[in-house]
C-alpha cells in the first residue's frame, strides 16, 4: 500500500542522486568566466583538452559578455576571468576583485555589413569615417547593448567618430541586448551593419548576405586579458589550480597552442603575452 514513507524514500533517492553528482564536482576543476567570442569561435575547444592532458584539471567555461563575466568574478562565482576590455579589467583589479591582469592574445574587431552596402563603406580601412557614413545614411546598425567587451569597443568607436550615440541614435540604431551570435543573426536577418570580433565571425554559419565591410584599422585592435579572482575577497577560489591555468596560458606552450588554432585555415587569435604594454 502507498504510504508516506514511499514519498520520503523518493526524496532520499533524489537526494542520493544529487549528492552522487557532488562526488564528480569534487574532481580537480576550475570555473572560468569568459566571453562568447572565445567560446563560440572554438578556441576553448582547442585549448582545454591540451591543458587537461597536461594537468588533469577540468576547466569549466561560462561564456558571457565581458561585463557579465567580470560581474561573475566579482560575486566570486568564478576562479578566473578571461575577457577583453582592458579599462574594465584594470578597474576590476584596482577594486581588489582580481589579483593581477595578464595579457594573453589579441584579435581584431571587424565591421560586418550587407553586400548591397547602403552606407557605401565596404572596403574602407577607416572605421570612424564608416560609422559617420552609416549614421548619415540612416543604415540599420545592430548594437550588442549588453555591456560586453564588444559593446564597450563599439561605444568607444562612436566616440572616436565624434558621434554621441546616446543622443544621436535613431530608429536605424537597434540595441538588442544580446550576445555576439544573436547580434549576427539579427544583422543577417535584417541586412544591417554590426561590429563583431573576427573569431566569432569566422565560425559563424548563418551569414546570409553579410560580409566584412571594414577591417584593418588600428583602432579595431582587441586585446584579451586573464585575471585570477582574488582569494582574499573570496577564500573558496581555487587559487593553485586557477593560477596554473593562467601560467599555462602565458607559457610558451600555451601561447603556441593559441597560435596553432585556426578556423578554415585562418588564424583567429594572436598570442602576445610577452608584448610590453599589451
Amino acid at each position, binding site marked *: 500500500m502507498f504510504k508516506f514513507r514511499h514519498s520520503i524514500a523518493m*526524496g532520499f533517492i533524489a537526494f542520493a*542522486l544529487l549528492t552522487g553528482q557532488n562526488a564528480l564536482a569534487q574532481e580537480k576543476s576550475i*570555473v572560468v568566466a569568459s566571453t562568447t567570442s572565445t567560446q563560440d569561435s572554438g578556441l576553448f575547444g582547442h585549448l582545454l583538452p591540451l591543458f587537461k592532458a597536461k594537468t588533469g584539471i577540468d576547466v569549466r567555461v*561560462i561564456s558571457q559578455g565581458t561585463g557579465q563575466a567580470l560581474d561573475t568574478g566579482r560575486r566570486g*562565482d568564478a576562479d578566473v576571468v578571461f575577457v577583453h576590455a582592458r579599462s574594465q579589467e584594470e578597474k576590476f583589479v584596482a577594486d581588489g576583485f582580481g589579483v593581477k591582469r595578464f595579457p594573453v592574445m589579441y584579435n581584431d574587431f571587424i565591421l560586418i555589413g550587407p553586400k548591397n552596402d547602403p552606407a557605401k563603406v565596404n572596403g574602407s580601412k577607416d572605421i570612424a569615417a564608416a560609422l559617420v557614413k552609416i549614421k548619415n545614411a540612416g543604415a540599420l546598425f545592430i548594437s550588442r547593448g549588453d555591456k560586453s567587451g564588444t559593446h564597450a569597443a563599439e561605444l568607444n568607436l562612436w566616440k572616436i567618430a565624434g558621434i554621441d550615440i546616446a543622443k544621436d541614435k535613431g530608429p536605424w540604431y537597434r540595441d538588442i541586448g544580446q550576445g555576439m551570435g*544573436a547580434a549576427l543573426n539579427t544583422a543577417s536577418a535584417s541586412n544591417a551593419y554590426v561590429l563583431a570580433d573576427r573569431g566569432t565571425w569566422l565560425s559563424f554559419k*548563418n551569414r546570409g548576405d553579410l560580409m566584412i565591410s571594414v577591417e584593418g584599422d588600428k583602432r579595431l585592435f582587441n586585446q584579451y586579458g586573464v585575471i585570477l579572482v582574488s582569494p582574499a575577497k573570496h577564500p573558496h577560489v581555487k587559487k593553485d589550480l586557477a593560477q596554473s591555468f593562467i601560467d599555462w596560458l602565458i607559457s610558451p606552450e600555451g601561447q603556441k597552442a593559441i597560435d596553432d588554432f585556426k578556423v578554415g585555415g585562418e588564424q583567429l587569435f594572436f598570442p602576445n603575452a610577452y608584448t610590453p604594454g599589451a
Partner: protein
Amino acid sequence: MFSSAFWMLVTGDPGLYRIIGLSLYVSLTATLIAAAIGLPLGALLALKEFPGRNVVTIIINAMMGMPPVVVGLMVFLLLSRSGPLGSLGLLFTPRAMIIAQAILIIPIIAALARQTIADIWVQYRDELAAMNIGTAGSIATLLWDGRFSLLTALLAGFGRACAEVGAVIIVGGNIDGFTRMMTTAIALETSKGDLPLAIGLGGVLILIVIAINALAWTIGRTGERLAGAA
C-alpha cells in the same frame, strides 16, 4: 535540415549523448523532487480546510506561469558565492539546475494534483471518514488511487522542465561537458548561427519528450486497465 544532429545521434556522438543524458538526469530528478513536494502539497490544498487556503491556491495557480528566467535569477542570487547559500558551491553545477527546475515545476504539479485530488476527494471523503482515516492517511490514499491521473501532472511538470532554457542557462552556465543540456545547446548553436544543428537538436529533444510521454502513457493505461479504473 535535421540531418547533422540525427547523424550524430545515429553514429553515437559521445558529446550529444552526454547532453541528452544530462538533460534527462536533471529534468527527471527535478520532476521527482517536485513530485515529492508538489503532490502532497496539492493533496493538502484539496482536502484540508485552513484559513488562507484560497489565497495559497490562487498563488500556486498563478505561479504555474512563472517565467523560468525569474526562477533562474532567484536561484542564482541564492546560490551565488555572494548569496545566502553561496558556501554550498552549487552555482554552475547540475544540482543548481535541478533545484531551479524543481522550483519551476512544483506549482504545476501541485496545482494539477490539487484539481485531480479534489475530484477524487468528493467521492472518497465519507468512505475514508467512516474508516477513521486521518489527514495524512487520506492524502496517501488519494495520491495512490489517483496515481494514473496524477501521472499527467508529472508529465506536464517534466515537459516544462525539459523544455525550459531560461533558468538552467543562468544557474548552470551552459558549461561544455558539465552543465550543457539540450535546450542550452540549442541556444548556443543558434547564437553561433548554426541553425540546422540547432533545429536538429530541437528535433531530437521533441523525439525524446514524445518517447517519454508514450512510455508513461502506456504504463498509465496498462495499470489503469489492470486496476479496473474507468
